[in-house]
């Protein structure tokens, strides 16, 4: 029996809202297959399963807020009978640690709607979101949510029942009020926290934070943690990329559009290869100590239309050929922008690259994304006059910066990295 749990998609994630299953009980699942979709502050994420077997029992239900580490489904191993696994006491215990509702457990039935998320799995340190509402007990709601519910005339008991026992916050209350309200255009807006005038419909809700606000909050949380915990140091160096660009232009000249390689991919490769020479910048700082990573998974800062950024990983960036790296980068950027990222895209970057490409500013001093310990920034390519052999020549350069974590490295390591990066750009053909 395998427990399929809510993954952690970054240091700033506590929980996710379950959206839908992509597999059914009895269906074989393969390692790497997308099993479900979860809504996070980074948008809707397709969650992959990392075991091969047969889906036995679906525990999570659409709309539930599920803490990181909580069991979402039970999977039978290849040599197990999935029906037996689904009905086994161990599966029931893992899927409902609270007493199961008074419904006969059926191996193929989706758990009944009153089954709220069970308490946190033992391995999880995440906050417990709640038990199913039980008759006679007050609904679980924050004091602010209770106050807001009273202001807006929202029935907390009904809301608690509808939210399957998950704790109710102010946003939930306001959403419920907005759903019950007549069209917004017909009622005057009321400032948040302002009670509706006596006699007015008690439904004039404050605007509910949308996905953009949620993403902004997630970015703020991660960056605040970074600035609080990480003693940053910053280095910068101008690097000539004329040779690399000319090589790339030759490379692309004979290739059709779909096979062309962008400078962003070449730069990503240069960063990954330079990192091999300074491995203390590559890894994660977890539980008070740095864990160097052999693999180089570069998180690529990707801006989204409509605001916000996500940082999906290009895995093993140092081991891919340039065309492979371009394909990988294209794939992940396209999926980030179309809202189809997968859990593996977000889980395990070992360093971040922010590349402002051919738009944007010349220099970027980035904020390290915890638990990583370094961030590489590349500005836009600009033309410069340079002195070579006593003569002035036109050339193209980028400003490369390194933000480093002083708990792990000093400026010397950062300087070595920038020197290695310069060497890589000087020799774009190097394997």
């Amino acid at each position, binding site marked *: 029996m395998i427990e399929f749990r809510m993954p952690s998609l970054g240091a700033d994630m506590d929980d996710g809202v379950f959206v839908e299953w992509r597999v059914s009980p009895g269906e074989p699942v393969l390692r790497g297959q997308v099993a479900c979709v979860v809504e996070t502050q980074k948008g809707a994420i397709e969650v992959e399963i990392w075991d091969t077997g047969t889906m036995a029992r679906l525990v999570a239900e659409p709309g539930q807020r599920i803490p990181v580490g909580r069991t979402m489904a039970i999977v039978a191993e290849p040599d197990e009978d999935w029906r037996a696994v689904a009905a086994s006491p161990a599966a029931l215990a893992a899927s409902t640690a609270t007493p199961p509702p008074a419904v006969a457990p059926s191996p193929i039935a989706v758990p009944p709607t009153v089954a709220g998320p069970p308490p946190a799995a033992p391995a999880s340190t995440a906050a417990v979101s709640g038990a199913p509402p039980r008759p006679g007990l007050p609904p679980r709601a924050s004091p602010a949510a209770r106050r807001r519910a009273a202001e807006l005339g929202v029935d907390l008991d009904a809301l608690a029942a509808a939210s399957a026992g998950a704790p109710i916050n102010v946003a939930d209350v306001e959403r419920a009020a907005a759903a019950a309200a007549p069209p917004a255009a017909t009622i005057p807006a009321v400032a948040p926290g302002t009670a509706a005038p006596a006699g007015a419909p008690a439904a004039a809700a404050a605007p509910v934070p949308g996905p953009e606000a949620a993403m902004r909050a997630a970015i703020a949380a991660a960056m605040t943690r970074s600035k609080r915990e990480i003693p940053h140091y910053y280095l910068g160096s101008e690097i000539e990329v004329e040779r690399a660009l000319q090589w790339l232009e030759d490379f*692309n000249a004979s290739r059709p*559009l779909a096979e*062309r390689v*962008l*400078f962003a991919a070449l730069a990503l490769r240069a960063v990954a290869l330079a990192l091999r020479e300074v491995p203390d910048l590559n890894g994660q700082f977890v539980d008070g100590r740095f864990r160097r990573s052999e693999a180089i998974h570069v998180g690529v800062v990707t801006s989204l*239309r*409509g605001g916000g950024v996500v940082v999906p990983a290009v895995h093993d960036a140092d081991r891919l050929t340039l065309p492979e790296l371009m394909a990988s980068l294209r794939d992940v950027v396209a999926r980030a922008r179309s809202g189809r990222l997968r859990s593996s895209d977000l889980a395990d970057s070992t360093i971040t690259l922010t590349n402002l*490409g051919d*738009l944007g500013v010349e220099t970027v001093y980035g904020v390290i994304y915890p638990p990583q310990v370094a961030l590489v920034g590349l500005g836009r390519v600009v033309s410069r006059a340079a002195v070579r052999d006593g003569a002035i020549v036109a050339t193209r350069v980028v400003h490369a910066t390194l933000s480093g974590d002083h708990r792990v490295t000093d400026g010397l390591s950062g300087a070595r990295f920038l020197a290695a990066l310069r060497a890589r750009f000087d020799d774009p053909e190097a394997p």
Partner: protein
Amino acid sequence: MSTTPQTIRQAVIDSVQAIAPEADFASLDPRRPFREELDLDSFDFLNVLIELHARLGVEIPEADYGKLGTLETMLGYLAARLESA
């Protein structure tokens, strides 16, 4: 097959909007750098060119990217390429 300026313009608009659905050509100044105006990075731009190729059959070499800076120059370039094809 003759390709009218209207056809080319529509192909450009469709190609850009396939990548940047919110792109507003009504308020776009055709003489200003449109990649900045429409916030198209190098990935977006490459994808726009791939879309254009699918619609017009014109494969634009990288060396000609400099001729595609504004909507006006891009339409002129495409018309010339289609004319000589």
